[in-house]
């Protein structure tokens, strides 16, 4: 096919969208509404996932150092802990620091314990390479010399991880289900607009048009409807996300938590929505006219 013919098909599809008026508007709105739903859910769920990860990463393993440990024992222990593959970083917090934390959180009454009365331990604070490894690291640390005890939130942390995993899985399922729904809805809307034009296709065949000559304008029309339909949610989601990001981040400042930055996250969503629109639009229309082209 030469460029002139392609150009004719493109012009023809624009004309057809215009002349089909309400049908085109209906199809575009259906695509827009569906993709708005898909896009919003993805934005929300991806951020929920991000927060879950932030929370998990906030969980650290606290290794209490035996009071009997000498300086070299402590250095040895630190080296042993650092040697573990799962350990990402090690921080040290002396018993005095620990007490300061307690005083900071619970009040000056704890000031009584300062100096030799301090009942607390020196602590190594470990961060693991991946949150699921926390319990594992804790177990290994427990067996080392001069370890008075290990704490990582134990059952509480395990439960947190479990909930976060559930949130993640359910989110993934919802997103997949939504994308399927979108595909189905968009393909069906376009199908209906084409069904109403079956006589048109029949006449085209009668005057000797080849199947591809009939198919191209429909295919381009479907892609255009998908594209235009996707532009609307893309605009809304971009605007709301940028606004919402600024507002929410202000509340989250000073915490470990953060939303996904609009760059590049918004670009992915925009690409995804436009992609779904165009691919489903053109696919939906070419599949629907197939049955009319057969006879």
């Amino acid at each position, binding site marked *: 096919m030469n460029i*002139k*013919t392609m150009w*004719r098909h493109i012009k023809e599809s624009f004309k*057809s969208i215009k*002349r*089909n008026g309400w049908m085109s508007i209906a199809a575009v709105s259906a695509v827009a509404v569906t993709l708005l739903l898909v896009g919003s859910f993805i934005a929300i769920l991806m951020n929920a996932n991000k927060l879950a990860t932030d929370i998990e990463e906030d969980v650290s393993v606290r290794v209490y150092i035996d009071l009997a440990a000498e300086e070299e024992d402590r250095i040895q222990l630190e080296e042993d802990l650092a040697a573990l593959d799962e350990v990402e970083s090690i921080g040290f917090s002396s018993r005095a620091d620990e007490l300061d934390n307690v005083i900071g959180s619970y009040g000056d009454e704890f000031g009584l314990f300062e100096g030799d009365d301090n009942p607390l331990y020196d602590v190594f604070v470990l961060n693991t390479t991946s949150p699921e490894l926390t319990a594992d690291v804790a177990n290994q640390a427990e067996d080392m010399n001069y370890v008075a005890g290990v704490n990582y939130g134990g059952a509480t942390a395990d439960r947190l991880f479990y909930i976060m995993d559930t949130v993640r899985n359910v989110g993934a399922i919802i997103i997949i289900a939504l994308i399927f729904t979108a595909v189905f809805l968009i393909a069906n809307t376009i199908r209906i607009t084409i069904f109403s034009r079956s*006589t*048109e296709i*029949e*006449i*085209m*065949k*009668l*005057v*000797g*048009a*080849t*199947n591809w*000559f009939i198919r191209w304008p429909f295919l381009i029309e479907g892609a255009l409807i998908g594209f235009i339909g996707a532009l609307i949610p893309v605009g809304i989601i971009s605007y709301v996300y940028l606004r919402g990001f600024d507002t929410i981040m202000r509340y989250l400042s000073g915490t470990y938590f953060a939303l996904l930055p609009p760059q590049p996250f918004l670009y992915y969503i925009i690409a995804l929505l436009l992609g779904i629109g165009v691919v489903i639009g053109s696919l939906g229309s070419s599949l629907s006219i197939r049955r009319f082209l057969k006879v």
Partner: protein
Amino acid sequence: MIVMSNVYKKYPNGITAINGLDVKIDQGEFVYVVGPSGAGKSTFIKMIYREEMPTKGTVKVGEFDLANMKLSKIPFLRRHVGVVFQDFKLLPKMTVYENIAYAMQVVGKNPKQIQKRVLEVLDLVGLKHKVKMFPNELSGGEQQRVAIARAIANMPRVLIADEPTGNLDPETAWGIMDLLEEINNQGTTIIMATHNSDIVNSVRHRVLAVENGRIARDQEQGEYGYEH
């Protein structure tokens, strides 16, 4: 030009529409096809442009062998066979101009050739002044003229008219008839299925009476009429 021999057509529902039909039509003829409803007239007509395929027998139109033709070749047959219907079958969302131009774009003609020829055929059917109108803005007779203009735009060797005057008042019907005569005079074969006895009896041509799926009468300069 058109040769059918020993043609049978049995539909999936068991009805045999064509039952051993033989006919030969030469280039440039004008042929009426008459017969009662359900006699196989429509099936006979539809087999010429491969809307229906014979169950048995051979159908040849020019160099096309319709019984053994690939589906992908159908469009090319239809470019040699113009068809006009009782219900016009114009593309409702295209203007008069675009309707005719479409048939030529399909063949791959360039816009210049298309413009020239569209205006030429519209002039022939007397609707040059309505190029920009849509089919629903035209009268029945005018729509049929556009359909005829479209059918002859690619200069087909055969023009099939399936009850072209069926939906029109007598006066308009005569206008359409004059037009078909003129097209025939330019060398195009015309095959016209009709129930209009006035026309058949006044403008005498070869008459094929189809009954029970066969040609019951084949008469030069024939009259309208059939047994049942």
